[in-house]
C-alpha cells in the first residue's frame, strides 16, 4: 500500500468526521505527519524540559490518538515546550512536534482547558502589545506580567530590571510602527480565517 | 492547365477536366476553402504543393493566437496607421451594392483538412528539379510509361533525411549546450552542425533538397517536413534532441534546453498547423464542441 502521509489522510476526510488526532493535524501549520508517530519516545527523550511536563510529547500523541480530548488539552506539556526543535529534527517519522504543541496551546485556550494561566496570559499579553504597537514592548510586557503572576518575584527582579534600564537595554516607552492601521486590518481579517482541509 | 484566371472560367470547366493541380497555400478563409473544393472537383490529380498547403508553414504559426489578436496586430499596431480603429468586415454596403471580403477561419488548416489530397509535395519552396521531376512523372503516366505512386504519398522528395544528402562528417552525438550559429566562431565547415551544438533540423527532415542549407553552412530549418510515416515532425525532432543532451541533472538539462530560445520556431516552424498539437486550443475547442453539438442534436 502507498505510504499514508498526512496530506493523503487529510484529503480523504471530511470536516465532520475528523478524529481528535486528525483535527489537531489539520489545524497545524504545514504537514504535521502526526498520524505517523510510532511511539518511539525520541521526543520525550530529547526534551530539555521533560522533567517538568505532566506527559511526554509521545504520551500526549497517544492520548490524541485515543481521543482523550480534555486530558490532552489540559496537559501542561505544550506550555512547557521551549520550541528548541530537538525532537523535530530527531524524530524518525518527521512529525512536526513543535508545531503540534502550538496547535494544542491554541486549542486549549479556545476550550479554556488550561489549568495554569501564567503561560496563556503571558502569550496573550505579548500578543496585546504587538496588536497595539506592532512591536514587542519588553518593559510593558514584563511589568504587566510580573505584577499579575509573580508579584513576589518582582523585588528579586528589580536589580536586573534596573540594570537593563540603566544600560539602555530596556526602553520604558513603547515603539509603534507607522502603519498600525494596515497591520490591524490584516490581523482583523486573519482572525476570521481558519485552516481547512 | 489553369493559371491565374477568373473563378468563373474554372467553374465553367467540366468536373475532372484538369489533369494536375498544384495547390499552393493553406486554408485561412472561406475563399481559400471554396477554391480548394472547386479545384478538387475539377482536377484528376490534386497535389498539396509546398509547405503551406502540406503543413501550414509559417502562416500556420498564427494558430498560436486567437483570430481577434491576429486582426488587431494586422490593423492596429505601430506599423499600421489606423487612428479610427477601422477593422475589415465580411460584408459592407457601398452605393454599387454589397461588397464581400473573405471571412477568416478560426485557424489555418493545411489543404488536406478541407479536401481529399492525392499527393503532398513539401518544401518552402519545393526545389525546381523536384517540380520538374513530378511534372515529368505525370507526363510519363499519361503516356503510359510510368505508374503513379500510392495515394497520399509525399512526392518530389527522397526516402531518407537531409543528413543522408549532407556532406558533413558525423559521429556519435552528445551535446553539452545548444548555441545559435552566429554565436559560434568559427563553425567547423566539415563537421555535423548538430554535433557542434547548432540545433540543426536535418536529422528529422525528409531528404530531397540536396541538403542545401547545411551544405552552405546554415542549419536545416526543416522546410521539407517529416520523413514518411512520421506522425509529428516537432515531436520527433524534440525526442531526438532530448536524446543527445549530455546531462543527468534536471537543472543542467533545463539549462541546455534554454539554448533553444524559440522552441515553437525550432520544432514547428513549418508544421504547426498540421501537427498533432492542434495549436490554438481555443479555436480547436470551438471547432470541436460545435461538431460535438451537431452530433448530439
Amino acid at each position: 500500500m502507498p505510504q499514508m502521509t498526512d496530506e493523503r489522510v487529510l484529503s480523504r476526510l471530511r470536516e465532520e468526521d475528523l478524529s481528535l488526532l486528525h483535527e489537531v493535524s489539520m489545524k497545524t501549520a504545514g504537514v504535521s505527519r502526526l498520524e505517523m508517530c510510532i511511539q518511539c519516545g525520541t521526543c520525550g527523550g530529547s526534551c530539555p524540559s521533560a522533567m517538568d511536563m505532566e506527559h511526554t510529547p509521545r504520551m500526549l500523541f497517544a492520548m490524541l490518538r485515543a481521543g482523550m480530548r480534555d486530558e490532552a488539552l489540559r496537559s501542561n506539556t505544550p506550555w512547557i515546550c521551549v520550541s528548541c526543535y530537538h525532537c523535530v529534527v530527531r524524530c524518525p517519522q518527521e512529525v512536526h512536534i513543535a508545531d503540534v504543541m502550538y496547535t494544542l496551546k491554541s486549542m486549549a485556550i479556545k476550550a479554556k482547558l488550561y489549568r495554569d494561566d501564567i503561560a496563556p496570559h503571558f502569550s496573550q499579553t505579548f500578543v496585546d502589545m504587538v496588536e497595539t504597537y506592532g512591536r514587542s514592548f519588553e518593559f510593558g510586557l514584563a511589568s504587566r506580567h510580573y505584577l499579575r503572576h509573580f508579584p513576589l518575584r518582582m523585588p528579586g527582579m528589580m536589580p536586573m530590571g534596573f540594570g537593563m534600564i540603566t544600560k539602555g537595554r530596556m526602553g520604558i516607552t513603547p515603539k509603534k510602527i507607522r502603519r498600525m492601521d494596515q497591520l490591524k486590518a490584516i490581523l482583523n481579517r486573519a482572525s476570521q480565517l481558519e485552516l481547512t482541509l | 492547365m489553369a493559371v491565374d484566371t477568373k473563378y468563373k472560367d474554372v467553374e465553367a470547366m467540366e468536373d475532372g477536366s484538369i489533369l494536375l493541380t498544384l495547390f499552393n497555400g493553406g486554408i485561412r478563409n472561406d475563399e481559400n476553402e471554396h477554391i480548394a473544393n472547386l479545384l478538387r472537383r475539377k482536377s484528376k490529380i490534386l497535389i498539396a504543393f509546398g509547405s503551406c498547403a502540406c503543413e501550414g508553414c509559417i502562416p500556420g504559426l498564427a494558430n498560436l493566437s486567437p483570430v481577434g489578436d491576429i486582426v488587431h496586430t494586422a490593423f492596429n499596431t505601430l506599423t499600421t496607421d489606423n487612428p479610427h480603429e477601422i477593422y475589415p468586415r465580411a460584408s459592407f454596403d457601398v452605393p454599387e451594392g454589397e461588397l464581400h471580403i473573405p471571412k477568416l477561419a478560426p485557424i489555418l488548416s493545411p489543404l488536406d483538412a478541407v479536401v481529399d489530397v492525392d499527393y503532398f509535395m513539401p518544401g518552402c519552396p519545393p526545389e525546381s528539379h523536384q517540380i520538374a521531376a513530378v511534372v515529368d512523372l505525370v507526363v510519363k503516366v499519361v503516356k503510359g510509361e510510368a505508374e503513379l505512386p500510392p495515394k497520399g504519398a509525399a512526392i518530389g522528395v527522397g526516402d531518407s533525411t537531409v543528413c543522408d544528402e549532407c556532406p558533413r562528417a558525423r559521429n556519435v552525438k552528445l551535446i553539452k549546450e545548444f548555441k545559435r550559429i552566429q554565436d559560434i566562431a568559427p563553425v567547423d565547415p566539415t563537421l555535423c552542425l548538430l554535433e557542434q551544438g547548432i540545433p540543426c533540423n536535418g536529422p528529422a527532415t525528409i531528404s530531397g533538397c540536396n541538403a542545401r542549407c547545411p551544405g552552405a553552412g546554415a542549419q536545416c530549418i526543416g522546410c521539407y517536413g517529416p520523413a514518411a510515416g512520421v506522425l509529428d515532425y516537432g515531436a520527433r525532432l524534440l525526442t531526438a534532441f532530448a536524446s543527445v543532451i549530455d546531462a543527468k541533472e534536471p537543472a543542467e538539462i533545463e539549462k541546455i534546453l534554454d539554448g533553444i530560445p524559440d522552441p515553437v520556431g525550432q520544432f514547428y516552424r513549418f508544421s504547426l498547423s498540421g501537427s498533432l498539437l492542434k495549436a490554438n486550443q481555443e479555436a480547436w475547442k470551438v471547432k470541436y464542441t460545435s461538431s460535438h453539438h451537431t452530433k448530439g442534436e
Partner: protein
Amino acid sequence: MSQEKIGVYVCHCGTNIAGVVDVEHVAKWAAEKLGGQGVVVARDYKFMCSSLGQELIEKDIKELGLTRVVVAACSPHLHEKTFRIAAKNAGLNPYLVELASIREQVSWVHTDKAVATEKSKAVVAGAVARVIENKPLEEIKVPINPNTLVVGGGIAGIQAALEIANAGFHVYLVEREPSIGGHMAQFDKTFPTLDCSACILTPRMVEAGTHPNITLMTWSEVVNVAGYVGNFNVTIKKKARFVKEELCTGCGICEEKCPKKVVDDVFEAGLGYRKAVYTPFAQAVPKFPVMDKANCTYFIKGTCKACEKFCPTGAIDFNQEDQLINVDVGNIILATGYDLFDARRVSNYGYGRLPNVFTSIEFERLCNAAGLTNGNIVLRDGKTAPKSVGIIHCVGSRDKNFNNYCSVICCMQGLKFAHLVHERTGATVYNFYIDMRTAYKAYDEFYQRVLEEGTLFVRGKVAEVTDAARYENEKGKLIIQVEDTLIGKQRRIPVDMVILSIGLQPRRDAKEVGKLFGISCSTDGWFTEKHPKLDPVATMTEGIYIAGCAQGPKDIPSSVAQGAAASARVLDKILQKEVALEPVKASINADKCSGCRICNGLCPFNAISYIADDNVSNINPALCQGCGTCVAACPAGAISGTGFSDEQIMAQIDGLLMRNLEVAGV
C-alpha cells in the same frame, strides 16, 4: 470496423479491483459498446489468473475463434506471461494478448467508484484499439553457456558458487577484496546459536578456494558486461597484487618483514592494523597477500623492497599490472553484499566525537579473539574494562532522516552483544530498542536467555549520548538520554561504553553496479528482485540473479538460503540448454536511415553500431532488449519496435480518449 474477434476479460482480483471498480459493468459495457471494434465476448471473473480463469479464456479462443484477447487486470509486470501462455495453449499467438492495468493504474490509485469505473472503460477501450494493431511474433531461441559468474565472495556468493560447482558446472567467483569471506569473516559469534563465525565459515571458504569447478578471482572487479541471457561476455579487471600467485606459498614472511603498518579500516573496521603487504586475516582464501600500493614505502619513496628481499620463492613482482580478463558465461549471480551506515551522521550519538562510542562492527572486532584486543572488551584507552554498557538499536534504520527500512539484524545483534558483554566483563548492560524484533527460528528463545542473564531493557529510541554531565554521578561517563516509554519518563543513564547497532546500507556503488549488469535498484538502493514474494532471487533482466544482502538486509541463514536459491535458478537455466528470448526488438529500416548516429550512443545494451560503408546504423537483435529508447529518438522514424509500433500506440491513445467510439457513432 475491425475484422478481428476480440475477447475482453475483466478481473475482480478479489476485492483488489472489484472493491473500487464496478467490474461487471465494465465487462457489460465492453460487450455492448465495443462490438464495433470487434469485441465478441466480454466477461468478468473473480480471479482471472487462476487456472479456472485461464481455462475460461482458452475455451473462448477455441470455441468462439477469438483472434485477439484483452485482459483487464493487474500490471503486465505480474501476469502478462500467464495470459500469453494461456493463449498459446489455446493455439493463439501469445503476442495477440494485451493487458489493461486496471489495478495499479485504476483501483489502487482511486477512491471514487464512479470515476474509477469510467477510467477502467477508457483503459479497456485503449487496449482493445491497440490489440487490433498487434502483430503475431515468434520467440527467438538461443543456446545457453553453462558457465556462471558469481560476483561477491561473501557467504551468499560462496554458497551459490559451491552449489553450482557441486552440480558439475563451472563458476567464476569474483571478489573485490583480497580474500573471500565477506562480513561474516569479521564476526566473532553468530546468533542465535553462538557458533564461532570463523569456525563455520572457513571450511566453506577453503572448499570454494580448492574446488575444481571454481575459478576464484579475488582482488578483482567486473568492469564490463556485454551480451544477454545465456551468452554474456564479461570483462574482469584483476588488480595487480604485486605478488606472483604461481610462486607464492602463503608463508607470510613478506608481511612479517614489511616495515609499514597502517590502520586497517576494511577488515578490522578501523580498530586494528595491517602491513602494506598483507592478507586481511589468518584464514584468508586465497592465501596470497596483496600489496597496498598507496601505502607501500617502495612505491612512495622508491626504496625498501624488504618483502622482495626476504621472499623465499621470489614471488614479489613490483612491475605487475592490472589485467583485463574476458570470460563467457550464461548466467550471473550478484551477491555484492552491503555497506554499514556511517554512525557519524547521527551526530547526537557522538560517534567520532566521544571516544567510547563504538559501532557494532567495531565491537565485533573487539570481541574477536583474532582482533586487536585478543577478544578483550575494553574502552578506547585499550585497557579499561567497562562496568556498564549501553547498546542502542536502530541507528540509522527506521528513520526518515536516514534509512526508512528496518535493518533486520540489529535486534538480534544487540542481544548477542549483551550476552557477550555479560559473559566476558560482567558489566551492567542496557539495551535500548523501539520494538524488539526477534522473528524466526530460535530467535525469541535467545531473547529470553538474554533477559535471564539480567540485561536491562529500555523501550525508547535514544535521544542523545552526551558527555555533558548534569550531576556528580554523571561526571566522566557517557550519559544516554532517553524516554523510557513504558513509564513515560525521561531517563539519563550513565554508562562507560555505548555500542551503536548501525544499520545495513546498499553498497555505495550499487547504482553503478546495477547499471553495469542492467538491473535496477529500489528507492532505498537495494537491487530489485523480479517479484518480492514469488521470485525473490531473479531480476527483471533475464540471466541475472541476486542473493544475500545485495537484495535487502538479511541475516546469515537467509543469505545462505538465497545463495542456494539463486544457484537453483541458474542450474534450471543451464539444464534447459537453450532460452527463448522475447521477440520485442527494435530494427532499423536501412532505406530511411540517414546515418545521423543520434541513436548510437543511446542504446543501454550497446546493441547499435554504425556501418560506415553503407552510412547507416544497425541493431544487433541478439543484444537488443526492446527498450524502445532508439525508437523514440530516431528523428527520421527509421527505427521501429515490434510490439510498440506507432500504430499500436496511436490506436491505444485514440482508444483511451474513446475517439474510436465516436467514429463508431456511439
